[in-house]
């Protein structure tokens, strides 16, 4: 029981932090209005499930059976891993592109200056 309370509290704290990060990124205009709403809804959903975990348990146990719930959990983890990996790749590609652009611009500037 204590572990459940601890995990729920941790999950709520984490979700609130993510909502804060989402708001900051919205203010910085990294996220547009739709993305802001979608991500906030997602994190609010996580908070709801942290408070009422039975909701999802009851739904799956009544609608399907425990085996399917287990498979869905595994698929969820795999999905998250793929998503993390794709994000990692995308960040690396963007980092390399930015690096190339900045260096090219700096070199162009100095060469132009010399040629003038």
């Amino acid at each position, binding site marked *: 029981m204590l572990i459940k309370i601890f995990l729920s509290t941790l999950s709520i704290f984490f979700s609130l932090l993510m909502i804060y990060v989402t708001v900051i990124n919205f203010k910085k205009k990294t996220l547009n209005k739709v993305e802001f709403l979608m991500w906030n809804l997602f994190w609010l959903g996580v908070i709801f499930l942290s408070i009422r975990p039975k909701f999802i348990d009851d739904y799956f146990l009544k609608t399907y059976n425990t085996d399917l719930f287990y498979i869905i959990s595994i698929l969820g983890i795999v999905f998250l891993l793929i998503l993390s990996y794709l994000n990692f790749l995308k960040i690396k590609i963007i980092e390399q592109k930015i690096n190339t652009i900045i260096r090219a611009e*700096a*070199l162009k500037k*100095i060469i132009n200056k010399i040629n003038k």
Partner: protein
Amino acid sequence: MFNSILIAIFTYNEEKKISLVLNKVCKKFKNVIVVDNNSEDKTREKVQKYPVKIIHHKFNLGKSSSMKSALDYARIKKFKYIAFLDGDDQHRISDLENLCSKILKIKKGIIIGYRKNLSKLNFTKRLGTEFLNIFFSFFYQKKIFDIQCGLRVFSTKEKKIKWCSSGLKHYFADAEITCNAVMNKCKISQIPIKTVRSEDYKGMNFLLGLYLLFMVVYWRF
């Protein structure tokens, strides 16, 4: 004498030391370029007072990318050799001259300086440097006395010297060049240089030291 050599100096917030370095370098060398990583202090303003070229990165891209920019410039301007020097006045200009003279004699490969008397460094830095060298010798089966030394000269036509293969921004550009040069069987010469008591490595700490050890193994395989 050193007309075919471009001296590249890397800076990031070096307003206190850069004038000292440029005063000495400009007396001995004609072709000097400073690669500034968007310093937030008055480094660039101070550099502009000297007859040197400046490459200004709009964001801090790290030393690896600065080296690449300097090398690109050297190749565009058809310099035969390029020398790398830190902007924090860690190295003596006479040592740089020795390295440059040596590359003009052997004409290829890479010349790396090594700090001969490490006892002048603080205990942690000395221990870290010595352990890293033993670790390096074990994995690469080659005795390089100071893989992290920032003072080095090499031919701009040297295709065997590659770096930033990992694409990551890190503090170990010098170590990565050394590792890649050894892996690619590049001709490496080492010249002792005077150890100057320096400030701590920028951003270098115990955890980064461990990360460097990991990267040394990573570059090996």
